[in-house]
């Protein structure tokens, strides 16, 4: 049986990425739309990207909150340009009823084109 010579070359190119960490606080009155105490607790509070309604952060609360710190989330930079993000929040009770959208808040994540891009790395394996 002939001996086989096998050479495999693996090449991988690593990339670099930039992301910003966003944190938001919010208030929730713990009431229903009529101002009465919310009957179906707990409620799920979500922060959304107004551009596509995607959920960015989720938390569960069991009553009114003030200055509540939502879990942080990361936003990847795109083409080193500024990222303008408009956010809103919603509440959904345990019965599945969803609130109207909250006020919106717009933030701008500045582009970070101050560093040279990462150099590619080539990995070669020969067997």
């Amino acid at each position, binding site marked *: 049986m002939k001996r086989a010579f096998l050479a495999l070359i693996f090449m991988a190119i690593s990339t670099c990425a930039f992301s910003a960490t966003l944190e938001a606080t919010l208030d929730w009155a713990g009431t229903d739309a009529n101002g009465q105490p919310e009957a179906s607790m707990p409620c799920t509070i979500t922060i959304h990207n107004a551009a596509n309604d995607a959920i960015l952060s989720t938390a569960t609360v069991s009553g009114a909150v003030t200055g509540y710190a939502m879990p942080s989330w990361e936003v990847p930079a795109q083409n080193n340009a500024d990222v303008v993000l408009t956010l809103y929040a*919603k509440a959904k009770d345990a019965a599945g009823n969803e609130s109207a959208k909250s006020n919106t*808040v717009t933030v701008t994540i500045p582009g970070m084109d101050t560093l040279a891009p990462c150099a590619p790395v080539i990995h070669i394996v020969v067997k």
Partner: protein
Amino acid sequence: MKRFAVIIIFLLIPVWVSATTYISDHFDAQDDWVGKVGATCYDPPSPWDGYGYYCREGFYINATGAHGGSGKGVTINWTQSMTETALTTPTSVPTGKSELWIGFWYKHSSGWNWGSDTTHKWYYGPETNASDRMMINYDQYHRAFWAGNTQFQSNIPFNVNDDEWHSVIIYLKHSTGTGNNDGAIRMWWDGTEATWTGLDAHVGRTNLQCDFGSGATWTSYSCIGFQSRPNWGSGNISYYDDIIFASTEAEVTEFLGLEGEPEAPAPPTLSNVTISGGSFR
């Protein structure tokens, strides 16, 4: 031990509550009342018997009056020439029923009014000289219910002319006999129960009867009607939809689409979004 087992079995037997819908109508399957006036519109739409609906000038069954954005409902386009009128006085509710639940949706156009009366409360009460009808209405001149000899009004100034749909649920219970104070009239407007000012209570009510002519008991539900008439003049429009007469509250709430409809929570207020910086990875 045997006795114990029997008791357990007895406790496991469900208690059956009889539920009967006497009359209900979403109007969706009814022929349009367009251009029909008078006797031709007394044809009782199924499943109604008796009078059906009064069809007079300005009365329509059409899509305009539909609650929920589809189907049909009743539209009353009030005109100067209209006289006092009622939507219906159904007679197909079995006689002798001591309790009755009624539900419907209504909407009055913005600015709907009765002259200078802007309080827009709901009234129960008797017509002078006693009518044989019990009616639902909003002003003191055309009272909600004729029942006994006292008129009482809701102390909640329900807004009836905001051009929005509102649900009304009414519970009626006969007095068991003349002089017995065990009748009841209760009403919920968008789920909030009305309380009443006046000379009598809405529960423990004496002589809650309809057929005053025969005395002691209601003998027919032909005594029940809906009546509304705003100040004469163009622009006042009333809408009714999803009318039901039933034996239990559950049937009414389900028919009106109110079952399992808790209020949505209030929206949060978003504030103070911060960027904590970036990081390579």
